[in-house]
C-alpha cells in the first residue's frame, strides 16, 4: 500500500505498474485532472492545500478498510498539492485485483471517501480574475 501527498507532478502509470502482482487480472487507474471549467466558470488554475500528515493517515485508513471489504490486491494513491495548471493530475488511484468487479468498486469507494474525508482543500482561480476556496466535495 502506498499513500502520498506530494508537491511534485504525479505519474499515474507508475502507480498502476507498482500495484500489479501475478495473481491480478485487472488494474483500475483513476486519474483526476484539472479541467478548464467549473459550474459554468472558466478555470485558469487550481491550488490544493492539505493537512499533510493527517491526509496521509486518513488515506491509509481508507485504503485499509477498502482492502478488508473488497477482494483486491495492492492499492496506491497520490494526491498533489500546490499550484496546478489545466490538464495536470491532481489525484491518481491505482487498484489491482484478481477480478475486475472488485477493482472497479474499490476504486470508486476510495475516490468517494477521499473527497468526503481527507483534509485537502481546493482553490479555483478563474479566467475572469476571481478566486475561491471550494466549499465541499462535488
Amino acid at each position, binding site marked *: 500500500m502506498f499513500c502520498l501527498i506530494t508537491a511534485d507532478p504525479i505519474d499515474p502509470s507508475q502507480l498502476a505498474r507498482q500495484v500489479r502482482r501475478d495473481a491480478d487480472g485487472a488494474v483500475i487507474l483513476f486519474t483526476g485532472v484539472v479541467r478548464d471549467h467549473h459550474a459554468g466558470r472558466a478555470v485558469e488554475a487550481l491550488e490544493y*492545500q492539505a*493537512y499533510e500528515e493527517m491526509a496521509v493517515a486518513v488515506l491509509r485508513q481508507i485504503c485499509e478498510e477498502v482492502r478488508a471489504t473488497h477482494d483486491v490486491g495492492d492499492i496506491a494513491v497520490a494526491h498533489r498539492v500546490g499550484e496546478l495548471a489545466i490538464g495536470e493530475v491532481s*489525484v491518481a488511484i491505482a487498484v489491482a485485483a484478481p477480478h475486475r468487479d472488485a477493482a472497479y468498486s474499490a476504486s470508486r469507494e476510495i475516490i468517494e471517501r477521499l*473527497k468526503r*474525508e481527507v483534509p485537502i482543500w*481546493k482553490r479555483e482561480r478563474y479566467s475572469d480574475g476571481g478566486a475561491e*476556496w471550494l*466549499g465541499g*466535495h462535488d
Partner: protein
Amino acid sequence: MRVKCLFFATYRDVAGAAELELELPENSTVSALVRHLRAQFATSALPTSPVVAVNQVYASLDTVLGDGDEVAFIPPVAGG
C-alpha cells in the same frame, strides 16, 4: 498548558496565519478553544461548531485538550 492550532483554506484567511500557539487553562475543551478564537479574531467566519481534528484524528467539540495537543480546524474538504 499550550496547544498548537492549525488553520487551513478559508480558516487560514480568517486566522491570518497557518499556525498559532495558545496558552489555555488546564482541561479546556475544544469548545472553549473555539470560543477563545472567535473572540480573538472578532469574527463569525469561524463557526461555533467547526470540524476539528485533535492530533490528526477527527474529534468532537467536548474533547478535553492536553498540553502539547495539535488542534486543526477543518473547513469543508474538497480534495480529488
